[in-house]
């Protein structure tokens, strides 16, 4: 039955239209959760506000449980769900660069557009920086092409990589998420800030 596009239940164009509405919903929820504030976002690194952690782990756990149960009921064929290819070196390097940018700028790419949409000047400047980065990467691509494509691993899933069932991984992620929520709330009490 699913994925709907693969089984031609809906057309590519309908798919894009749905993505458009889901994108608007995503942006709205991000903004409502306070993700347009760079201080709130940076709070996760200092411990005074861990809403970022909670929102993203809630999203991940919800999608994970949903997909696994849909697959169990035969509503979706997970082997047709697109999985990003893993280039280990660029994943690590990209993660470090993104994390550094996140701490310094106070936004991640998605939330910067969220902030810009409600008129935050720091978010707009962040977007300018983002495009400078895109430009440097694109123009200098031959310089780092080798690193970029190094350590290609195909599309491994954690369950296949460790040879554990998907369900068990899901349970572990849920437990990790609950511990994360608990640790986050503890950190918020431990490192409180009055105003931010």
């Amino acid at each position, binding site marked *: 039955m699913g994925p709907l596009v693969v089984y031609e239940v809906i057309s590519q164009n309908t798919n894009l239209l749905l993505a458009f509405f889901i994108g608007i919903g995503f942006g709205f929820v991000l903004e409502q959760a306070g993700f347009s504030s760079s201080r709130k976002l940076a709070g996760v690194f200092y411990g005074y506000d861990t809403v970022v952690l909670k929102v993203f782990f809630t999203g991940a756990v919800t999608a994970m*449980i949903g997909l696994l149960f849909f697959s169990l009921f*035969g509503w979706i*064929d997970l082997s047709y769900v697109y999985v990003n290819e893993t280039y280990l070196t660029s994943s690590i390097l990209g993660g470090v660069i993104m994390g550094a940018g996140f701490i310094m700028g106070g936004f991640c790419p998605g939330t910067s557009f969220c902030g810009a949409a409600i008129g935050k000047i720091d978010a707009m400047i962040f977007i300018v920086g983002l495009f400078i980065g895109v430009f440097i990467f694109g123009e200098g691509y031959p310089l780092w092409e080798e690193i970029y494509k190094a350590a290609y691993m195909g599309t491994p899933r954690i369950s296949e990589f460790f040879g554990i*069932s998907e*369900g*068990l991984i*899901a*349970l572990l992620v*849920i437990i990790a998420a*609950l511990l994360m929520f608990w640790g986050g709330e503890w950190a918020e009490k431990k490192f409180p800030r009055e105003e931010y």
Partner: protein
Amino acid sequence: MKNITLSPRMVITAVLLSLGLIIAAVPKNTTKPYKLTAAQILDEIKSGTQYLEPEQVAQMLVEKDPYLQLIDIRPQNEFEKFSLPGAISIPVDNLLSPDQAEVFDQDVRLNVFYGNGTTQANEAWMLLRQLGYKNIYVLRGGLNYWAEAILNPTAPPSTSPNDDLARYDFRMGASQALGGGALSSSETQTKTQAPAKVPGPKPTGKKKKVAGGCS
């Protein structure tokens, strides 16, 4: 009496943990549903869209159409004895082996099955079509009809309609271009003195829209 109330945090924790336990306990659903339903396949069979006429295939061969991929589903030893030009051998037994997946999992080339007749080619077509692969066709009549129609065409009576005569001319041309007579007796060989008209007239009958090349 004191009411026991659960905080929202406790409720969420309980729900998440129980869902996680369920999903960890049940085995993974590995059933792979067919991508096409039986009714859809029946529709295709009824309309006969899976067939390519020998003339269409012959013309693509003559024109060296790069999109044509002939697939011989007979056993390997028969393939080695005789096969159509450019055909690859995928015996029916190997149809689902992972090595063949990339032959079928594409939407550029036209995969055309042929066997001696059409039965096995049709079975292969039906199986792969239900798995959702596209651009799969069957050579109408298989090699038997190919030999009869392309390699050793028989002249229609001179009173036949023009269409039949044109088709005969085309077949004679294709026969020469494709090394006709390989399966024929020397008697018919000597009769092929008609000048090779390559490519011949377009094959008559319903023409299928194909990806590139032959349009």
